[in-house]
C-alpha cells in the first residue's frame, strides 16, 4: 500500500528521525502508519477476495455525480469493528493508529445513479441495508482487481479510507438495524430533514446519520438520493444544528461570557459563548506549510459568520463551519440556555493531513465539555485568549464579525449617549 504520492521525504531525514521527532514536519510518521496498517491486515492475503466484519461502512464517492460509485467497505478481519466508524472514539487515538485503522478499510465499488436510491436494485438495496445495520456486518466480496497497492483516499471532509477495487460479487450477512433507524428507513413519507432530526433526538450519533443519509436510506420515497459522503456529512451537521439552534434561540440567555480553550497536537481550538441572541462565527488560521522559519508570521485568517436568521449561502470556509456549529448548539442545548458563539481554530505547521471534519466536530465537543473561564466583557475574554494564540489576538479581533457586532457595531452603546 502507498500513501498519496504527494508526500516525498528524503530518506536521510527518516533515518535521523526514526519516527520519533517528526522531522518531516508532518503530524504523523508515514512509515509508522504503513507498518501499523500492515500489522492490522496481517491476516489478509492480497488477492481478489475480501472477508471481514464491516463496522458497517459504506463510502459514497462524488466523482461523476450524478453517476457515482458506492463502496461497501470492510477491514480484512473479523470481530467488533464498530470503532472504525465511530468518530467519537478517534479523538484519543494517536494519529498513526487512527490512520492505520482507517487505511485498513478496503472498499469494493459499484456504479449507481444517485436517483436509484429511491427504487434500488437488489445489490443497491442490500448495500443500503448493510449501511443501516445496528451491528458490524459480515461481508464477503469478490473483486475485479487484487486489492492493495492503490492510493488511499485523503479528503479534507471525509475520513481517510483504504484502497478500492470494482466489485464483482458481494454477500452481506446484515443484522437488524437499530429500532429508530428501521423506523426512519421504512417511513417513506418522512422528509429527510425530519428523519435526521428524529434520529438525532433518539440518540443516534451524527456520523451514523450522515452515513445513512448518504446511502439514500432516508426521506420521502421518491426523493431519496445517494449523497456523496463528504456532502452528506455537512448536510447532516447543518440540518441537525439548524433545528437545535431554532430550539435554543428561545431559551433564557447565559449570564456571562464563557471562554473555552483546547490546545491539542498541531491545533488550538477556542470558543467564546456570549450572553446575546444567536450569532455565530467560525474562523480558521492556517500557518504557512511546515517551514519553521515562517512560524507565526503570515498565518492568514479565514472566517465565516451568521446572524440570528442563519446564512443564505454555503460558507466559503467549508464543512467545519457546520460541524462546529453543531458542537456549539449541543452545548447550549445541554445548558438549556441561549447565547452566541465565537469559535476560532489555529492550525500549526506540520498538521497538514486532511483527516476529515469529524476531527473538528469532536475537538469542539471536547472543548465545550471542559470547564470555562467566565468574564463580564468580551474584551476580557480576548485578553485571556491572547495567552494561548500564536496569531496575535488583535488579528483575530480585526477579522471577527461577532466581536464588533457585540461591542461597537450595535445601537446599545448609543442608549446612554446624549445627542
Amino acid at each position, binding site marked *: 500500500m502507498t500513501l498519496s504520492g504527494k508526500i516525498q521525504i528524503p530518506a536521510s531525514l527518516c533515518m535521523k528521525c526514526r519516527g520519533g521527532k517528526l522531522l518531516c514536519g508532518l503530524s504523523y510518521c508515514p512509515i509508522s502508519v504503513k507498518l501499523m496498517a500492515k500489522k492490522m491486515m496481517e491476516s489478509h492475503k492480497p488477492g481478489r477476495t475480501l472477508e471481514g466484519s464491516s463496522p458497517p461502512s459504506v463510502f459514497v464517492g462524488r466523482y461523476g455525480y450524478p453517476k457515482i460509485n458506492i463502496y461497501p467497505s470492510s477491514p480484512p478481519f473479523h470481530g467488533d469493528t464498530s470503532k472504525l466508524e465511530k468518530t467519537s472514539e478517534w479523538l484519543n487515538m494517536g494519529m498513526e493508529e487512527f490512520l492505520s485503522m482507517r487505511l485498513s478499510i478496503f472498499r469494493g465499488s459499484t456504479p449507481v445513479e444517485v436517483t436509484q436510491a429511491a427504487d434500488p436494485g437488489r445489490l443497491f438495496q442490500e448495500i443500503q441495508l448493510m449501511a443501516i445495520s445496528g451491528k458490524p456486518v459480515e461481508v464477503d466480496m469478490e473483486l475485479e482487481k487484487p486489492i492493495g497497492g492503490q492510493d488511499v483516499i485523503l479528503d479534507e471532509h471525509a475520513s481517510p479510507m483504504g484502497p478500492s477495487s470494482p466489485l464483482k460479487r458481494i454477500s452481506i450477512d446484515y443484522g437488524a438495524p437499530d429500532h429508530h433507524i428501521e423506523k426512519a428507513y421504512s417511513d417513506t413519507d418522512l422528509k429527510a430533514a425530519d428523519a435526521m432530526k428524529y434520529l438525532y433526538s433518539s440518540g443516534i450519533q451524527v456520523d451514523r446519520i450522515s452515513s445513512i443519509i448518504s446511502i439514500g436510506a432516508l426521506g420521502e420515497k421518491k426523493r431519496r438520493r445517494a449523497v456523496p459522503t463528504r456532502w452528506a456529512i455537512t448536510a447532516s451537521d447543518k440540518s441537525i444544528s439548524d433545528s437545535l439552534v431554532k430550539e435554543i434561540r428561545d431559551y433564557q440567555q447565559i449570564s456571562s461570557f464563557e471562554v473555552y480553550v483546547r490546545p491539542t497536537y498541531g491545533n488550538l481550538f477556542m470558543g467564546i459563548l456570549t450572553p*446575546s*441572541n*444567536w*450569532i455565530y462565527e467560525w474562523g480558521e488560521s492556517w500557518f504557512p506549510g511546515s517551514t519553521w522559519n515562517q512560524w507565526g508570521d503570515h498565518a492568514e485568517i479565514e472566517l465565516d459568520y451568521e*446572524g*440570528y436568521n442563519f446564512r443564505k449561502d454555503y460558507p466559503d470556509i467549508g464543512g467545519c463551519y457546520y460541524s462546529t456549529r453543531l458542537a456549539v448548539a449541543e452545548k447550549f442545548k445541554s445548558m438549556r440556555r441561549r447565547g452566541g458563539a465565537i469559535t476560532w481554530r489555529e492550525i500549526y505547521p506540520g498538521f497538514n493531513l486532511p483527516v476529515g471534519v469529524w476531527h473538528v466536530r469532536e475537538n469542539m465537543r471536547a472543548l465545550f465539555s471542559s470547564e470555562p473561564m467566565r468574564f463580564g466583557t468580551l474584551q476580557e475574554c480576548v485578553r485571556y485568549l491572547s495567552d494561548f494564540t500564536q496569531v496575535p489576538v488583535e488579528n483575530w479581533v*480585526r477579522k471577527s464579525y461577532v466581536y*464588533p*457586532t*457585540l461591542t*461597537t*457595531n*450595535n*445601537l*446599545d452603546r*448609543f*442608549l446612554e*449617549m*446624549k*445627542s
Partner: protein
Amino acid sequence: MTMLKMTISLKNLKEIADLLNTVVTEAKFKVTPEGLSVKAVDPAHVAMVSMEIPRGAFVEYTTDGEEELAIDVERVKSVIKLASPNDLVTMSRDGGKLRFEISTIVKSISLLDNNSVTTPRVPQINSESYVVVSKGNLERGLKAAEDVSDSIRLTLNGQELRARSVSDSEESEMILPKDMLKEIKCSQTIKSSYPLEYLLKLVKSLSSAEDIKLSFKDDYPLTIEFKFGQSKESESISGNFLLAPRMEQ
C-alpha cells in the same frame, strides 16, 4: 379585556408588516384610542424600527381602552397573501386571537404572550446633516456594492453623496452630485459606515417611497425616516429606522 376592531387597506398593512419584518419576526404594538405604535430591534441590536399608525390611517378604528398586542409578523404576512391588491382587511381581537376578515375569508391567528416579546429602549439619535435621494439611485448604489463587501461607507459634504465599498481586490462606488440629490443639508464632510445587507433590506422594504432621507454624522447611527399612506398628517403612517454604524477597523 378591551374591544378592538380596525380596518385598513391591504397595501398599508402589507407595508407595515414588511417594514417590521426587515428587523423582527415578532412585534408588540401599543394600542391606544389615538392609534397603534410599535418599536422593535433586531436580535443583534443593529437595526431598530419605530412606527406610529394614527387612527386616521384606518378606515375604521374602534377601541375602548389601552392594551398591548404581541403579534407574529410572519403569520400576518402569510394571512394577507390571501388578499387582492384593493381589498380592505378588518382585524379584531377575539380573546387570545387576532381575527382577520378579508373579502370572503375569515381567518384567526394566535396572539403571542405579551411577556415573550420585549419593547426595546430607543436611543436618542439626532443628526443635523441629511440628504434626500431617489430610492432607485440609492438601491442601485447599494446593489453595486453587494458583492464587494458587507459594509458600505457613506460620505456626505455640501456637494455630493458618495457610497463606497472596498475589499482586498475590488471596490464599488456610487457618486451622486448635488444636482442629482433632492435635498441636502450638510455644512462639513461627514463619514460613517453601515452594514450593507441591513441597509439594502431596509431600503427595499420602503415599497411606496420614492425618495429616502438619510440622516447621519461621523460614526453615528443612520436614521431613515419614512411616511406613507395618506398625505394628511393625521392619516399618514410614519416612523424611522435606526441603523448602527460599523466602526472602521
